[in-house]
């Protein structure tokens, strides 16, 4: 609860800073408040308080996901020092990012479908604005418009699904719905099943799972790079937190009914994402497609619903967010230099030894090479799918990670090649170097001791 206040306070302060003219203090203030929010998140741990008349339930699941998202946002602020400081729209960006984080937090902790809807919308509307924020750039306009139009469309599906579930069960509250479902799970009305399917479609859009993924690559590519970084980390984590929370609490009784659908979506996402990523030459778009593939892996945790799904998803989401934010520090520097092509990285490792090392480790982690954090995330998720009998899905997943090694290593190889004509000079400011150092430590430590995060739930 206090977390939500702290996070939105940054937003309000940001807007006030324009009026009261203290914009130059805004950046340190936002860093500080993020740290405060992190501390407040820690204080919520293991209390399990229900807020707002049981609309928001800060159980350990919600706390850990909130923690991951707050840390990611903090890293996001750190990596974007140059982008934010001195930017005439710094206040707007800071405010909108804070509100988006608030929405993300609500998505992790909702215990009522109304809150789910509000969280999704707060996050999404903020992201529409940010995606289109580069007003003079047609690509940014297009990204924002595509995101907005398809997002609103998907929200319609989500809402219709919520309405149907409400009609069938008579409540928006997760506890009451799950009680109702477990009491009548043999004779639920057809509108309930229709509702579950529509909610699944709406959330699948938000997590960018195939075949609802079409927006993602275009939007990721067109948006200003800092916001792409935010989308592929915080937004994705929040959407999955909501997805798993809803399906594991409310709909687990009827999982035999929906899990084949999600399994197919998951397999499609992995294959489409990996195969399309193979042919990309722009690093930003490659990451967008790899985001689709990773949505497939994370969806596996929802498909193979068992008592370890949540730990597996937390581990994966943490590893993915951390690695992505690190890689996006590189991408944002490439954007500043005006070239997002992978081939422009030739000779990178000669000039920037430490960033090259960190990016290599991150790529290894995200490709699932032990003993880094990404490996344990993948391992936990694959093991869950196998345990639940989805052998074919695990096979597809392994196949797709094999493909993924190709394109992740493509980036690594490019960094270590001798410089060509295309090579550009990239400079990492101290904040970005610090981010790289932190993510390196996190990826290695989480790889050695995954229990650090999995035992928190």
């Amino acid at each position, binding site marked *: 609860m206090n977390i939500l206040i702290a996070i939105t306070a940054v937003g309000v302060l940001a807007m006030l800073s324009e009026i009261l003219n203290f914009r130059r203090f805004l950046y340190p203030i936002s860093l500080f408040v993020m740290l405060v929010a992190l501390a407040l998140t820690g204080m919520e741990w293991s209390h399990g308080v229900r807020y707002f008349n049981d609309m928001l339930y800060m159980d350990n699941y919600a706390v850990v996901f909130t923690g991951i998202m707050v840390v990611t946002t903090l890293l996001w602020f750190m990596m974007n020092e140059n982008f934010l400081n001195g930017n005439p729209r710094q206040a707007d960006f800071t405010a909108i990012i804070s509100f988006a984080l608030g929405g993300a937090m609500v998505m992790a902790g909702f215990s009522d479908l109304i809150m789910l809807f509000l969280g999704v919308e707060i996050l999404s509307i903020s992201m529409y604005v940010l995606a289109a924020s580069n007003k003079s750039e047609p690509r940014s306009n297009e990204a924002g418009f595509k995101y907005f139009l398809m997002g609103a469309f998907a*929200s319609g599906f989500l809402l*219709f699904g*919520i309405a149907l579930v409400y009609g069938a069960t008579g409540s928006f509250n997760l506890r009451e719905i799950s009680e109702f479902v477990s009491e009548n799970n043999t004779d639920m009305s057809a509108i309930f099943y229709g509702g579950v399917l529509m909610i699944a479609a709406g959330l699948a859009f938000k997590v960018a799972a195939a075949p609802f993924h079409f927006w993602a690559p275009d939007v990721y590519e067109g948006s200003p790079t800092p916001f792409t970084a935010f989308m592929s980390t915080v937004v994705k984590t929040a959407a999955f937190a909501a997805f798993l929370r809803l399906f594991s609490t409310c709909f687990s009784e009827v999982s035999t009914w929906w899990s084949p659908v999600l399994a197919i979506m998951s397999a499609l996402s992995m294959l489409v994402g990996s195969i399309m990523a193979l042919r990309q030459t722009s690093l930003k778009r490659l990451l967008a497609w790899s985001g689709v593939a990773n949505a497939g892996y994370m969806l596996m945790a929802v498909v193979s619903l068992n008592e370890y799904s949540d730990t597996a998803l937390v581990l994966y989401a943490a590893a993915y967010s951390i690695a992505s934010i690190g890689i996006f520090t590189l991408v944002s520097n490439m954007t500043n230099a005006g070239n997002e092509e992978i081939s422009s990285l030739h000779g990178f490792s000669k000039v920037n030894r430490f960033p090259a090392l960190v990016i290599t480790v991150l790529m290894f982690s995200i490709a699932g090479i032990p003993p880094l954090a990404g490996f344990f995330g993948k391992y936990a998720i694959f093991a869950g799918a196998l345990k639940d009998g989805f052998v074919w899905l695990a096979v597809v997943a392994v196949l797709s990670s094999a493909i993924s090694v190709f394109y992740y290593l493509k980036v690594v190889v490019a960094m270590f090649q001798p410089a060509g004509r295309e090579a550009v000079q990239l400079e990492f400011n101290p904040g970005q170097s610090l981010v790289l150092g932190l993510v390196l430590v996190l990826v290695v430590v989480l790889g050695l001791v995954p229990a650090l995060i999995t035992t928190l739930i």
Partner: protein
Amino acid sequence: MTGSILDTIHINNYLILASFLFSVGVMGVLFRRNAIIVFMCIELMLNAVNLLLVAFSTMHSDPGGQVMVFFIMAVAAAEVAVGLAILVMIYRNIGNTDINFLDKLKG
């Protein structure tokens, strides 16, 4: 209090009407090319949901559904505000509101 309105008009009728409205909205989104009309069709989808929620709220005699309707209206307003702003920006840049003109990002 006499019986609920649902005794006279059965809930299924509301369900069918809402589904029909929703489908009209979806069709509009899919087949109209002018962005403004697409927006309106999305609003239509949301209104179908509102109708459904109100009907269900009466059926369960639970005010929650009506509360949800207010939230949806508020959010829809915010959404349209953002959408129209983006649209204005696009119109300034490319002088067109046809959604199929936006296909620079692909592959």
